[in-house]
């Protein structure tokens, strides 16, 4: 197709849509908003599945010496629960929200690489499906989400479960790294005029930091997984101690990824509440720079603390002391954030919407998770608490009380923007209180049984250890949590059909995404705004309260002050999806390397699909031209 040279100075009407209707439109989409929705829906489905796995485990542990589950199935469940919640639920939920909101917040029309964005979402979903296929192919992985060597070697784990774990996660890993690069480039290059780093919404800041963490942390996991794959399939000995390999090497590689991963899960959520708290307090964030840079500090320190997961491994007192000191240090930027959030609310006009309640709940629970982590950072105490239920309590206060509650805050906050309808507030508040109570009923007792010596990852325990009552309480709590999630699901379905119309700006918020319609048009902004402060929409609405606190008030941001570029939207394409399917097929071929005919045919089909998709992908870019004008 010939390249259109038509230069358009001002855009009067958005381009005619060429998006196919129905399912085809979703499968071929390159729109960051649709991709964000796919991410979030898939993540929610995996969240439900991971939750069901947790309920099954809680039933098994509700009474001592229970025989509800076999030990091997229990081991599969806790492996899949951890893997699912981390890689397939919380991470993609963060990515999905980011995908939807970040371009709108920075005044961009899309992500920097829309087709790569589509590839990421499909690889994430296909990787998750591949992992779950293991249940029907001889058993799911049963070595824990941390997969310590040498239990993962063939003699100890002869089923294909570990291979599905490696290859499924490699697919999601490709998706994560591509997604992270996409976020970094988008945030650094596609901000609206005037939107300097110093004016960026804090949610965008946190997504940027997470992008960098991902790019540095994920390769360590990928390398470890490929080495393990080679050990299992091609006779290498990376992690076989009896033949010169090193089992501890796996732990270093895994936790060099694994600890930053915690911040990958929590920082975007810290970004969410840094948006919701000011909005629902009708105040700016207290200490913008401290909140932003404490995020940077957490991201940086996150790479210096991995061995606090390994205090019992015997690295020696000196190494342990170093990692303990670095881990303690993280309390400082984390504390700063918490104090700044409370100060943001202080003297504000709080409106306790469901989103706000979840934000406050996040802070309240995250404080507990942070404090219970102090003893785990202290090597001597850690030796009593690690691998006990105390850690299970701690990590759920951080990742559920922290990440998941914060994500609920974000979902209640942005649902109106995404759908044009409000979630029901009354149902939401009932659900919030049910969740807060049941969460604590479930996880607080685990501090006690851990201190009373109950190890993690055991499918059964004997009576008379003092663990029976609290385990039963935790099981009851888990089912109440499930009821709360069901209530949310009900709210979601009811509100999608009958929710009150949202309007552009239902919360009287400050950032650019609320300046456009709900849901926003495909091209996001009719006119790219010019930004003069950290709260462009706020300054537009309340000029008398405008500015960043430095005296001078800023000009109205929503009045265009420069020549608008033409709208440039990429065309829908199936090639990212085909590439994902091809790569997945190839990975199945690698997985069945022990059955050459099957392996080779899968690999050939997979590679052919990948080649076809790449050629098509390259040609796709020419189709974008009609609206292009650079």
């Amino acid at each position: 197709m010939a390249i259109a040279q038509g230069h358009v100075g001002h855009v009067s009407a958005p381009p005619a849509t060429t998006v196919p209707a129905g399912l085809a439109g979703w499968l071929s989409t390159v729109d960051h908003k649709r991709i964000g929705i796919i991410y979030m829906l898939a993540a929610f489905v995996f969240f439900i599945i991971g939750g069901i796995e947790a309920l099954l485990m809680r039933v098994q542990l509700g009474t001592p010496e229970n025989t509800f589950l076999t030990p091997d199935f229990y081991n599969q469940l806790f492996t899949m629960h951890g893997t699912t919640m981390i890689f397939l639920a919380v991470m993609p939920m963060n990515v999905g929200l980011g995908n939807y909101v970040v371009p709108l917040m920075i005044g961009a029309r899309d992500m920097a690489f829309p087709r790569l964005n589509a590839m990421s979402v499909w690889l994430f979903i296909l990787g998750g499906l591949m992992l779950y296929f293991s249940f029907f192919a001889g058993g799911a992985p049963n070595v824990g989400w941390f997969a310590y060597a040498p239990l993962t070697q063939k003699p100890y784990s002869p089923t294909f479960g570990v291979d599905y774990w490696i290859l499924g996660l490699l697919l999601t890993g490709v998706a994560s790294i591509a997604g992270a690069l996409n976020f970094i480039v988008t945030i650094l290059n596609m901000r609206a005029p005037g939107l300097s780093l110093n004016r960026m919404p804090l949610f965008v800041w946190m997504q940027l930091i997470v992008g960098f963490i991902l790019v540095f942390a994920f390769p360590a996991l990928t390398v470890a997984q490929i080495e393990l794959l080679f050990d299992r399939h091609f006779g290498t000995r990376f992690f076989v101690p009896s033949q010169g390999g090193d089992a501890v090497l796996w732990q270093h590689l895994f936790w060099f990824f694994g600890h930053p991963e915690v911040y990958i899960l929590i920082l975007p959520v810290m970004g969410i509440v840094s948006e919701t708290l000011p909005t629902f307090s009708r105040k700016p964030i207290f200490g913008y720079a401290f909140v932003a840079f404490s995020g940077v500090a957490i991201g940086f320190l996150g790479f210096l603390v991995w061995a606090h997961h390994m205090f019992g491994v015997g690295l020696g007192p000196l190494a342990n002391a170093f990692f303990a000191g670095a881990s303690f240090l993280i309390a400082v930027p984390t504390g700063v954030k918490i104090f700044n959030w409370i100060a943001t609310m202080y003297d504000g006009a709080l409106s306790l919407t469901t989103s706000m309640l979840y934000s406050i709940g996040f802070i309240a629970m995250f404080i507990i998770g942070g404090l219970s982590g102090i003893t785990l950072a202290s090597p001597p105490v850690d030796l009593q608490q690690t691998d006990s239920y105390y850690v299970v309590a701690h990590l759920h206060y951080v990742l559920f009380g922290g990440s998941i509650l914060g994500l609920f805050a974000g979902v209640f906050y942005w649902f109106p923007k995404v759908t044009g309808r409000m979630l029901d507030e009354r149902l939401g508040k009932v659900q919030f209180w049910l969740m807060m109570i049941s969460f604590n009923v479930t996880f607080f007792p685990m501090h006690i049984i851990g201190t009373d010596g109950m190890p993690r990852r055991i499918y059964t325990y004997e009576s008379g250890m003092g663990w029976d009552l609290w385990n039963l309480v935790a099981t009851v709590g888990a089912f109440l949590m499930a009821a709360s999630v069901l209530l949310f699901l009900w709210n979601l379905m009811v509100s999608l059909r009958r929710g009150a119309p949202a309007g552009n700006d239902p919360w009287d918020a400050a950032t650019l995404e609320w300046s456009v319609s709900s849901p926003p048009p495909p091209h996001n902004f009719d006119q790219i705004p010019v930004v003069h402060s950290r709260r462009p929409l706020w300054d537009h609405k309340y000029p008398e309260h405008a500015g960043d606190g430095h005296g001078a008030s800023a000009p109205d941001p929503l009045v265009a002050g420069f020549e608008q570029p033409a709208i440039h939207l990429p065309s829908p394409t199936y090639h990212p999806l085909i590439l994902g399917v091809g790569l997945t097929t190839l990975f199945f071929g690698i997985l069945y390397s022990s059955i050459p005919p099957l392996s080779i045919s899968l690999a050939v089909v997979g590679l052919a699909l990948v080649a076809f998709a790449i050629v098509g992908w390259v040609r796709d870019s020419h189709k974008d031209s009609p609206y292009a004008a650079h």
Partner: protein
Amino acid sequence: MGTRHRPPVRRLLYAVLAFGALALAGCSTLPASTLDTYGDHARRIHELLVPIAWMALAVFLVVEGALIYTVLRYRRRAAGTMPRQVHGNTNVEIMWTIAPALIVVVVSVLTFRTQAANSQMPADALKIHAIGHQWWFEFRYPEQGIDGADLVTASDMYIPVGRPVTVQLEAADVMHNFWVPKLAGKTYMIPGKTNYLTFTAEQPGIYRAVCAEFCGEAHALMRFRVIALEPAEYDSWVAQHRVAPVIGGGGVLGGDPNRGKELFLNARKLCITCHVIEGTGAKGIIGPNLSYYGSRQTIAAGIMPYSPENLERWLKHGYEIKPGNLMSRVLTRDWIAANLTDQDIKDLVAYLDSMKVNVALPPAR
């Protein structure tokens, strides 16, 4: 307006304190509680935990209090109120950056002191090798055997009270973890790597212990006991163990110990493929050493109390009791049906039960 909302905050505070006190008190005498210590290593950890816990509780009350106060105080402003647009306060922010840093320094100093104390390895400590297997613990005493051979046992680790013990930790297959909550913090047993853990039992007792690192299918059923004896009693245990066991006393369960011994040593019955009994032809090293089995505290790595009846049950239904265990993979239900009669099993039980060490056992803690 503010004062009206304070009582609920205070009530919450009392509730938290009361709950914490109850929780701590409740744990103290439980079999595996880390707060009820009888060894110096675990005691020093507990002594470190207490001040950290109080500091954490103080921070918890201050920060959660500030949060709850702020929410209750400012939640009912008239709609449309425009609060003062405060963007920050650098002095205040620097202050609350330094405050946690100071607490961190205090916790670090306390931590490093305990670390130093708990990593001491006195030269005169008793040396014991502990080796983790899927799914049982082997204990070897290199200084107590005869003619350079180790004194070997399994599942019960005997130690003297009051003398430091340095346990050399190793693993035979996958990673395991050696944890005696009332005596010492846990330490990994890693194939290809040697770790050391030194502790002193301060009171005689039988202590619960487990593998704390996930190690495969029957990880939950990999336990052991540490039996701390007064030094004289411990010396007696060693002296008796240095002599090969002989059949003593009559048979239990109506079994014939002498016939049981014949069966045990019959290669076709497979016992000697994996097990050692000192002074006999049983020299298999894959499974636990069964010398003086009649004095074991538990069967199948700590999962049921030792009794002839439980031993009979174990020999008949091992797979159901401990799924995945190596012995049941070889001695399957069909193999047992074809090769061992009920009387054979009673005879084997009688033989194993007849080999006893005579020491006065301390109370279970």
